[in-house]
């Protein structure tokens, strides 16, 4: 790493042509994939600038995904914390139950445009796998989803959903058998089937152009939020809060606010059993910069540069890295990254269920766990928006097990 990254004049102007957010990002992939990575970059740039592509995407977001998602004033939660007014951006109401579909719709249109005939994806919690299987079913494309064997076990309902949608789920047993290993296996598939296969990455990480492309497709979250909060309150929020694993829902919420410096951007990483135990998934709070899965970013690693296992109750946050734009936003100080433990997230899960009648995904519950601190810090006259990135039905069995209940 070089000198600390300078604070930019325009945060939204990144990455550069080489896919860099300051020192982070880039394209660390085997040569076999590199020509395809360039082809993807060119195809995405052309699609992004094509009004027909944008119109098709917009139509699908409205009529298939169900956008815009509501911005909901959580009155009892607001009263409970006794701080700022809390709004929830209801991404859990999207088709398939999370924000992941926003990106999948965009990328499947791109894959079709590129003439690719086979789709592969990786998944942790299964939300991205389900969203990928969904769009593949819609367009009649074969879909293989790589999922760590450990995650297959703890997210069985989502595995079944993917099968119902016609996808083949490959349980990955190598390494720690979780999300990072699923991504390794997907990359091995891609390098082997480079001619006909499109790799539908689910988070804002990996080699350029994925971090920028996934962010762009997810930025609909932040754009809608901005318009909705202006409509409701006549001003911008004081803070937006989102959970961060790879970081796609967070960057989708943050990005439209990057140059609105009055808006605090707060990401919440998974502290697992506690930061002090070393058993966590907090790449920024507990890691160092390095290279994995195509990008330079903060990673959990040992002193020798071997990647270490992440630990989190949430399969969707159980990843030793984070998207490169988050690494950069952390270094330049534009965003703040907090942590929440498994137990705090379980408490937050119950809290939202009891106060607002909403079961949050255990991933999103990490953000809820820090919401009280943020709301009190902002104060009574303030406004905070939390991105409720997914619904919690898939986690009911996990939550029950941790509460010592049999269902």
């Amino acid at each position, binding site marked *: 790493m070089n000198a600390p990254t300078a604070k930019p004049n325009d945060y939204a102007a990144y990455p550069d042509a080489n896919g860099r957010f300051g020192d982070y990002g880039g394209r660390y992939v085997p040569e076999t994939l590199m020509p395809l990575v360039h082809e993807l970059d060119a195809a995405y740039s052309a699609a992004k600038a094509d009004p027909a592509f944008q119109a098709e995407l917009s139509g699908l977001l409205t009529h298939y995904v169900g956008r815009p998602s509501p911005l909901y004033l959580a009155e009892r939660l607001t009263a409970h914390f006794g701080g700022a007014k809390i709004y929830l951006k209801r991404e859990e109401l999207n088709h398939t139950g999370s924000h992941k579909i926003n990106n999948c719709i965009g990328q499947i249109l791109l894959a079709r445009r590129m003439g690719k005939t086979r789709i592969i994806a990786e998944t942790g919690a299964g939300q991205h796998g389900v969203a990928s299987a969904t769009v593949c079913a819609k367009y009649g494309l074969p879909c293989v989803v790589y999922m760590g064997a450990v995650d297959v076990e703890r997210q069985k309902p989502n595995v079944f959903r993917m099968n119902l949608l016609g996808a083949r789920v490959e349980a990955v047993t190598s*390494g720690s058998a979780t999300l990072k290993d699923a991504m390794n296996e997907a990359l091995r598939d891609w390098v*082997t089937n480079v001619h006909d296969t499109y790799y539908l990455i689910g988070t804002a990480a990996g080699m350029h152009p994925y971090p920028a492309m996934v962010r762009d497709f997810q930025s609909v979250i932040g754009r809608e939020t901005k318009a909705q909060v202006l409509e409701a309150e006549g001003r911008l929020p004081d803070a937006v809060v989102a959970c961060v694993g790879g970081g796609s829902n967070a960057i989708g919420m943050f990005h439209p606010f990057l140059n609105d410096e009055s808006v605090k951007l707060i990401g919440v990483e998974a502290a697992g059993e506690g930061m002090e135990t070393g058993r966590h998934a907090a790449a920024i709070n507990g890691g160092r910069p390095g290279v994995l899965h195509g990008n330079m970013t903060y990673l959990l690693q040992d002193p020798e540069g*071997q990647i270490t296992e992440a630990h989190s109750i949430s399969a969707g946050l159980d990843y030793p890295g984070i998207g490169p734009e988050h690494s950069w936003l952390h270094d330049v100080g534009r965003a703040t990254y907090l942590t929440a433990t498994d137990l705090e997230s379980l408490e937050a899960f119950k809290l939202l269920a009891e106060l607002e009648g909403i079961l949050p995904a255990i991933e999103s519950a990490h953000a809820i766990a820090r919401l009280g601190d943020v709301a009190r810090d902002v104060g009574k006259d303030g406004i905070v928006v939390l991105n409720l990135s997914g619904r919690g039905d898939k986690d009911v069995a996990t939550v029950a097990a941790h509460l010592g209940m049999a269902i």
Partner: protein
Amino acid sequence: MTKARIDARFAALKAENRAAFVAYVMAGDPDYDRGLEILKGLPAAGADLIEVGFPFSDPMAEGPPIQRAAQRALASGMTLNKTLAMIAEFRKGDQTTPIILMGYANPLVNRGFAAFAQDAAAAGADGLIVVDIPPEEADPLADALDAEGLSLLLLSTPTSDDARLKVIARRTSGFAYYVSVAGVTGVKEADAATVAPHVARVRAAGGLPVCVGFGIKTPERAEAVARVADGVVVGSALVEEIAASLAMNETVTTRVLSKVESLAKAVRLARVASPTV
């Protein structure tokens, strides 16, 4: 200048009119002592050059054999430091066989490129292959290696067009490594007839000797490829011998070196046997 060792070896091979046999082993597989014993035995068994893998937890371009080799090495406590120590130990008895380190970016990023280059040169390594550093990301590493006289060998693949081959050649020295199949190591098999025109393209782009690897498992295949290339790299088939001998409680070194002998012999015979491909 350690680049000199690679150049001298290929000059000698050219004088003999034969292709190089390049053996890949994972440092510390199955452990440091036996790994060193294998390494020391390779030249006598017929390895003209040696690739020494340094293990990484997430080897995204490797098939199951080398993934498992990396896991065995890591489980035995192998590190980048110990890999370099092993090479230094090897160099005490062999000053002529070129050694190319091969692995993934993160252990090097973690060490720092300049510090790594100094230590690798001091240990007696000659070059480096990093699977996940394509030409687009290669300059900082290439500069650090240049400063120590070490070669960087950027990989060429079936998907690299002529324009990319030129870019690859610009920052490659020692020899050119052609990955003969689109895929991970040790799964698909390379076909000499398919490989031949690509070897010619790679040679034309950089003028360096071209070694072919990633899909060669048998003496027959090694012999066929040795007729069309300047060198043949075998890795997965060797580390599978280690796995097999561990499973059957055999002496690891004997079994691996015997496989090396059969492959090296096939490569040596390639150009005196019938030249048909």
